């Protein structure tokens, strides 16, 4: 039957499940495509097909891949976009432009930065028993819930990408012995990759931004003792509730100060030393943890400032509430951001401790 100009038959499509972008040696774009193939019968498991192509732009690379693939290559079910470190250090936006322009593209795909080359991670093909693209997608999804990585999809970072007053962070993937590890975030400034945060710093950053997932766990050392480790020295707690208050103040001399007050209600998950029924113990722990966490926050913010990553959107706050200051600062916001003074204060309160004391 004719008359179907826009027909895009599903059976003529080969679905891309993951795309990776790397910097090729000659300055071009090296694209990796993970194509999910359906099995011939229901008993067989689905298979992956990996293609590497080069091109000047995303679309050109995709067309080049289409030259090697039977039927039509379709990217509307893309689940994960991985960008290699080197590529990310250059500008991110030109790679992503096609995602934003094509009405059929999958804007709910997750994005991540990889250590080394994205092609290497995709070349793993399979992690354990799960196919690579699915594994990464599910991995990031589960990490979002433990507040290790932010909930970003291509669509969510679009407004932030264009906004000079805020920067985004992306999950950072590392390949470790045949498996993929997602535990830290990559910091960006103006679409460029500028630094990494350690796992606990990533969690802290997200908590500072008031974007807690379902769980947020920290494991800290309680006693500073010389010599070797003793498992009795550690404490693991989960932040159950976090109240965040951020205030941007302008102090004399156009000094921008950001006061961050966080109040956490935590549950103790692991504490071999017990004795949590003693009020004195609990109060002591509260004080200790508050100081620890405040220090961690200060470290995190310092690291972010060094990477010029305005993850908390200070610029936007200035734009909105102190437009006159913003006008003077926005020209050299890169360096002006580094002059901002952060004053985080975290108050930890232990509320629950499991079923034993």
């Amino acid at each position, binding site marked *: 039957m004719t008359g179907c100009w826009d027909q895009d038959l599903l059976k003529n499509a080969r679905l891309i499940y993951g795309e990776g972008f790397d910097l090729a040696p000659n300055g071009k774009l090296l694209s990796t495509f993970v194509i999910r193939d359906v099995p011939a019968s229901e008993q067989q498991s689905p298979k992956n097909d990996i293609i590497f192509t080069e091109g000047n732009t995303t679309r050109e690379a995709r067309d080049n891949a289409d030259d090697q693939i039977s039927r039509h290559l379709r990217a509307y079910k893309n689940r994960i976009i991985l960008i290699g470190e080197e590529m990310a250090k250059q500008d991110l936006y030109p790679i992503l432009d096609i995602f934003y322009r094509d*009405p059929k593209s999958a804007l709910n795909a997750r994005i991540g930065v990889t250590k080394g080359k994205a092609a290497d991670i995709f070349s793993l093909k399979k992690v354990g028993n799960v196919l690579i693209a699915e594994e990464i997608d599910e991995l990031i999804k589960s990490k979002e819930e433990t507040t290790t990585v932010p909930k970003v999809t291509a669509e*969510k970072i679009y407004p932030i990408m264009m906004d000079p007053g805020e920067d985004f962070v992306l999950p950072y993937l590392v390949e470790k012995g045949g498996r993929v590890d997602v535990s830290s975030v990559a910091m960006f400034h103006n679409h460029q990759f500028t630094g990494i945060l350690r796992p606990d710093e990533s969690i802290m950053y997200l908590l500072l931004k008031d974007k807690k997932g379902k769980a947020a766990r920290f494991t800290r050392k309680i006693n500073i003792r010389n010599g070797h480790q003793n498992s009795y020295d550690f404490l693991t707690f989960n932040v159950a509730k976090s109240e965040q208050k951020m205030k941007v103040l302008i102090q004399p001399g156009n000094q921008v100060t950001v006061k961050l007050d966080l109040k956490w209600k935590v549950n103790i998950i692991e504490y071999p030393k017990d004795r949590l029924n003693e009020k004195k113990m609990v109060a002591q722990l509260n004080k200790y943890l508050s100081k620890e966490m405040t220090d961690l926050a200060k470290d995190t913010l310092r690291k972010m400032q060094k990477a010029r990553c305005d993850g908390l959107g200070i610029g936007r706050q200035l734009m909105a509430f102190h437009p006159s200051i913003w006008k003077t600062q926005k020209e050299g916001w890169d360096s002006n951001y580094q002059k901002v003074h952060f004053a985080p204060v975290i108050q930890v309160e232990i509320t629950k401790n499991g079923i034993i004391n």
Partner: protein
Amino acid sequence: MIPEKSRISQGQFMFIVVQAQVGVGILSLPNKVQAIAKGGGWISVLIAGLVIQVIILILWALCKQFPSDTIYSFLPKITGKFLGNLLCFAYIGYFLLSGGTVLAKFADVIERWVLQETPRWALLILTLLTCMYLAIENLRVIARLFVISSLTIIVMVVLTLMGYVNVNFSYIFPITEAGWGKIVKGATEALFPLVGYEIILVIYPFIEGKSGGKLKAASLGNMMITLFYAFEVFTCLIIFSPAVMPQVSEPLLYMLKGFSFQLIQRIDLIFLSVWVFVVSTAMVSWIYMATVGLGRFFHRGEHKKAVPYAMFILFILAMMAQDPSISDFFDRMLRIGHYTFVVGLPLILLCFTYLIRKRRT
């Protein structure tokens, strides 16, 4: 003169106004108004709503003088036969041009978001045939459908609410960043997606009841739509940062595109499907306005017969508007036309009628 079966109630009239106003402009309104008024865009919409309320008052006052005439019949009464008929034709032309641009914009959005390859004439024929099927009926049947499709507005509101998971209120601050002058200028921009209320000129005699109730119905309809539009603009403003807005011509659709449920993704397609209803009703109202006039001149009062001709003209207009320069030209003509025919002329006519009345008594 007005057949019984064409009479409509005031409630139905309110829904007619609602559906005539909501049309193709809602998708691009946030973008346009933000370009001028930045964070205060939603205030511009509210101001536009107020202005329209005033215009509705003028139109109502004019129609009240001639309670059983449509504009085509009372225009010659005021200005004399020759000038009156000429002006009637001008009105018909304005209505047809409006309908044509609505059709062209609709085809444009569909072509960009859903059906890239389908030739425009195929889409136009599909739309026009459906609209024709409704436009040949008398007003009561049209009103019935309009009442039902007002439910689609609720669906659109619900879909918009889904965007609230990802809002950032600081995007609209400072609200008066653009300055009040720009906000008012934005109101003039926001006026155009809200047109449609001039249908009161044509269907005033068909409505049952006293004139006060008719004004109430029209005002209520206008208020509903103004609030709806302001809500949409507000939502878009807090979801998209000011730097991104100029890039995105249809922010509502863009926002919905990123969502996914368990069962379905691409929610923007759902929104577009619902939106088809809304645009069709807006077009039917323009066609109706034009064909009542055409019917009066050429077909002895039966607007039915004039509908195929109107369809043909709209088809030509929409095909012509594929060229961006022509569509810009149409836009400008429309603006001029709106200010003259809907604001200026009724005002002048109103003054005339008062003078004539004074002279008589």
